[in-house]
Each structure stands twice: as C-alpha cells, then as structure tokens.
C-alpha cells in the first residue's frame, strides 16, 4: 500500500539532490553561516581569554563577531528561503509539466503525492540543518579548543529541532501556494512576498497598531507603556520569524530568564544565574507548539485542497 509513497519519496529526494536550485541555496546558506561562525569564533577566542564565561560553545551560534551577523540570525533570515525554494513549484510544476495526470493514473493513493513531497522536503532540510550545525560545532571546537558540555549539546539539539520546524513551516506554506496558484512564478512571488512581510513588515505594522491604540509619550503612565509593549510584542509573535528568534535565543542563551517585558518589581530579590535546561525548554514550549501547529494547519489545508482539486488542467 505504501509502495507509491516510498517510490515517490525516493524520486523527490533524487530530484532535490540533483536540482541546481537546491545546490545554489545550499551553497548560499552554508557560505554565509560558516562565515558568521568564523568571525564569531575569532571574537570568542579573545573573550574566553579574558573571562571564564559559561556556555562558550553556544556562543558560536549566537554571538556576532565583527561585521557579520550570527549563525542563528542568518538561519532565521535565510531558512525561510530554503523552505520556500523547495516547495513553491511542488504541485503546479507537475501540473504545468503535464505529468500530474500521468502520475495519478498509476495505482497510487492520491495523497501519496503530496505526502511524499512534504516528507522529502522535510528529510532534505533535516539533513541540511544537521550537516550545518555539526559542521559549525566541529569548526567551533577547532577554533576555540573548548569541548561542549552535555547541556550545551542538548541545547544545540533543541536548536536544530526548532530550526527544522521553522523551515518546515515555510515548506508547508510554499506547498500550499503551489496548489493555490497555477503558475510557478506566481506562487514563487507570493512566497517571497509573505516571507518579506513576516521578516520585515510585521514589526512595522505591529508598532503602528500598538502606538495607535496605546499612544506612548514621555508622560504616559506605566500601565499604557506596558499595554503598548505587550500588544506590539504579541502582534509580532504572529510572525513565525519572531517566534523562532525568541525560542532560539532562549535555548542558546541560558542567561535569558523570561521573554518580554520585566518590571523592576519582578526582578527584585532574584538571584542572578542561568536557567537550567528544562526551564529554558518550558519557556519556549509555546513557541515550538505554535510553529508545529502552524505547519500542520498549512499542510492540512494543502492536503484537503489537493484531494478536492480537479486533475485536469
């Protein structure tokens, strides 16, 4: 019964591996990320000599040495592009190539097509993230000479899972667009538009809306300032990019104890220190579930659309 799924999955994997598009994207991401890590590594070497900071290994991912952004920043910016590039022509490409009806005339379940495409994309990006992160880890160890502790390894693993879920969300979005739009160019543009919107414009809109509802001036009461901030923050959280950024920062930087606004009264009496692994995980749990839910909703919509769509062009 699952023969169709397996054969399709294998073909999709092969297609990704041999496509020039995938090579290009992979090269861009790998080059920028490794450059970021290299400059971060150089910075850390100087810093380690001065203070005996904890979690030096994790700083490879988050610290931005010199002029280049950090590895995590690069991934949060370029990751969507990876997902989008893998899925934007998933279905309409087959349709335009007139291979879809031939494919579906074979004795396979119709959902095998869309499942195989998503699973193949997911496997590819898992492989990609695994490779990149391990490369960064190895590179970092050589560069700094400090081996990671078990907690750091665990945090790095969670970071990988987060990244995979984040990119899978974009993959699901692009597959959905490939179903909704008949032309591959249209779906590609729609994907890029959405990406730009969430990466760049959401924060602008959130600011405008929050300032409109709760205008903040120098004389504003603390209450309004808090409301303004919370609204802005929550609107921003509609963007998976912010969710991902928050979750990553929390996981990779144990010094972060809460997300969002903290009042002085709340910090009073707190003992400075780092969060244990479990507590960091607890803090980002809503982010992870939110992103997984969004991915699943996107995939479910595509699934239903695909099952209902007419086959003929």
């Amino acid at each position, binding site marked *: 019964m699952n*023969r*169709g799924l397996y*054969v*399709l999955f294998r*073909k999709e994997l092969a297609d990704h591996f*041999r496509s020039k598009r995938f090579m290009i994207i992979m090269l861009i991401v790998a080059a920028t990320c490794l450059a970021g890590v290299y400059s971060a590594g150089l910075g850390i070497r100087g810093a380690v000599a001065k203070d005996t900071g904890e979690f030096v290994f994790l700083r490879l991912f988050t610290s931005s040495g010199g002029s280049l952004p950090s590895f995590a920043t690069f991934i949060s910016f370029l990751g969507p592009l990876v997902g989008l590039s893998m899925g934007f022509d998933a279905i309409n490409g087959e349709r335009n*190539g*007139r*291979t879809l*009806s*031939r*494919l*579906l*005339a*074979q*004795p*396979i*379940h119709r959902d095998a097509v869309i499942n195989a495409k998503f699973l193949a994309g997911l496997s590819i990006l898992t492989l990609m993230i695994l490779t990149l992160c391990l490369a960064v880890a190895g590179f970092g160890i050589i560069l700094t000479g400090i081996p990671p502790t078990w907690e750091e390894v665990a945090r790095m693993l969670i970071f990988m899972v987060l990244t995979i879920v984040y990119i899978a969300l974009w993959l699901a979005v692009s597959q959905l667009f490939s179903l909704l739009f008949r032309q591959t160019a249209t779906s590609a543009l729609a994907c890029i538009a959405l990406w730009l919107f969430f990466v760049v414009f959401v924060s602008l809109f959130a600011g405008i809306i929050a300032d409109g509802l709760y205008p903040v001036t120098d004389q504003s009461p603390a209450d309004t300032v808090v409301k303004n901030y919370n609204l802005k923050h929550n609107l921003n959280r509609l963007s998976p990019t912010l969710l991902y950024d928050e979750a990553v920062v929390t996981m990779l930087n144990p010094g972060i104890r809460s997300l969002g606004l903290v009042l002085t009264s709340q910090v009073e009496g707190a003992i400075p220190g780092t969060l244990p692994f479990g507590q960091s995980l607890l803090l980002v749990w809503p982010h992870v579930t939110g992103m997984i839910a969004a991915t699943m909703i996107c995939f479910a919509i595509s699934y239903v659309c695909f099952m209902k769509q*007419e*086959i*003929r062009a």
Partner: protein
Amino acid sequence: MAGDIIIRTENLTKCYGDFKAVDELNLAIRKGEVFGLLGPNGAGKTTTILMLLGLTEPTRGRAWINGHDCTRNPLVVKSFVSYLPDNVGFYEDLTGRENLRFTGRLNGLEGEALEERIDFLARRVGLSGAIDNQVGTYSRGMRQRLGIADILVKDPQVVILDEPTLGIDPQGIEELLQLIKELSVTDGRTVVISSHLLHQMQKICDRVGIFVQGRLLASGPLDSLWEQVSGQQGQLLELAVEPDNPQLREILGRLPDVEEIQQEQALYILKLKKDIRRELAGVLAKQGYTVLHLRMRQGDLDDIYRLYFQQEGVA
C-alpha cells in the same frame, strides 16, 4: 475473448455547477475491441475518462471496469488500466528510461525484470536509440511513442488514450495508429480512444460512440451507426454544379424523388427518397450544367458527425 463487456457505465453524470459535462452516460465496451469516443472539444470525453479512472468523482451514476467500481476501487482499476493523457508530459530532465523506470516502480516492478521490460518496450515503439537521452530533447512524436511505452509498462488489460494523435505529423500518425491497432490485435488489450479526428478513428476503431454536449448520441460499429442515423433521415446527396444560378433550384425541385433542398455554402444538399444520381446527372447535363461534385452522404464519420450536429443545431 470479444463479446464480454469489460467497461460499463450506468447513468454516469458529472456536473460542474449548472453545467453538465457528462449527462446520463450508459456505455458498454467489449473486451478486446478498439472503441472510439468521438466528439468535438468540450463534449465530455476527457471527463468521462477521468471518471473511469476514479480521478474525478461522478455526480451521479456508476462505472465499472472488469467488475470493479471505478469510484470506490480506483487503485485496483488503475492497476490494470493505463491512461495516456492528451499532450502527455514527462520529467524533462530525466531520460526516457528513467521516466519509464519511475512508472514501473510505481506499479511494483523492480530491478532486472523492469529493465528488460523497458528495453522491450523501447524496441517496440521504436525508441531503442533514444531511450537513454533526456526527454527534453525528444520531438513531439517521440514523446507520444514514449507515452505508449509508458502505458504499457504495467502490461494493462485496458488502455485509454486521450487524443493520442494531436499535433503529430501525418507520417507519425500512421505509425502511431498502427501501434495502437497492434495493442488490440496482437496483445488482445481493450483500447478506448477519444478523439475528434474522424478519419483516423475510422481506420482503427471497431466501434465508436458519438459524444455531443455530454451525451452519447449513438454508438455501434461504423456501418450500423449510419443506418441508425439515416433511418429517419432519408438519403442526403451533396451536389455542386456550374453555373450556380437561381433556375437550378427550380430544376431540382421538379425532380420527383427530392424531398427537400438545402444549401451549405457552395453545396446543395438534397434529401432524397432513393438514389437518383444517374437521372440527376442526365437532367443536369441536358440543361447545360457541369457537375463539379456529386456524392451520397453515408458511412463516413464526417457525415454522421455533421448530421448529428445539424440535429442538435450545434454546428
């Protein structure tokens, strides 16, 4: 072999909103025959085919192939029915062999047996030399032949072809029709072809069904089809003469067996009680007319087609 019904539909109907693409279709196709679905574009041929394969759900009615319900059991049906869509597409950056291999794997073939089958089919459709080239380099005719090989990979009992000869040069069409005929004669497969090209269908079909606006107007062997039509119609004679002047109509009207005279551009269409070609030629010659064209409408699919369109007021 022939005689058993292999494909059967019962009041098969497909509506898109208010538009009825297929309307109460009752079809019976026998094992081993070549059946032609004839009709103009948009007559519902492709929709019917998609319903037979379970790719589109009928609004009403049912269809069976070999006793399997096409809507409820599409996987079983698709395991012994092959479909060549019109204007078939392949993965352009893969070779012909890789494309066939993919189809074979989807049908559960693997390894040595699959490679042998691909070689055999490539020889059969005359693509041995090009099977390892990328499909992107293929000509239209080669693609269509690769399509034939593709549908034969699973060794199907029933083959459904949608407009297989579209856009192919005359030489290619001859070869393709020959290939299709072989599927039925040599291999004993049931072949269903949809087309709007009458002459080609006439060459290879055992029986045809005529589709107009979602309805099957007539079906049967070609000769009986004409009888079905001409039964209530009388005989139609096409006539063109020179000079084409107003007196001609009078002369024709005076002939005893002419029931009705119509004009289609330069042609006069005479509805006759019996064949009067001999007398007519004599009369016209005596009056100084030169006969340019004189032909009874019968048997030819073109004529059947035209007659139906006149009845329907479509043409």
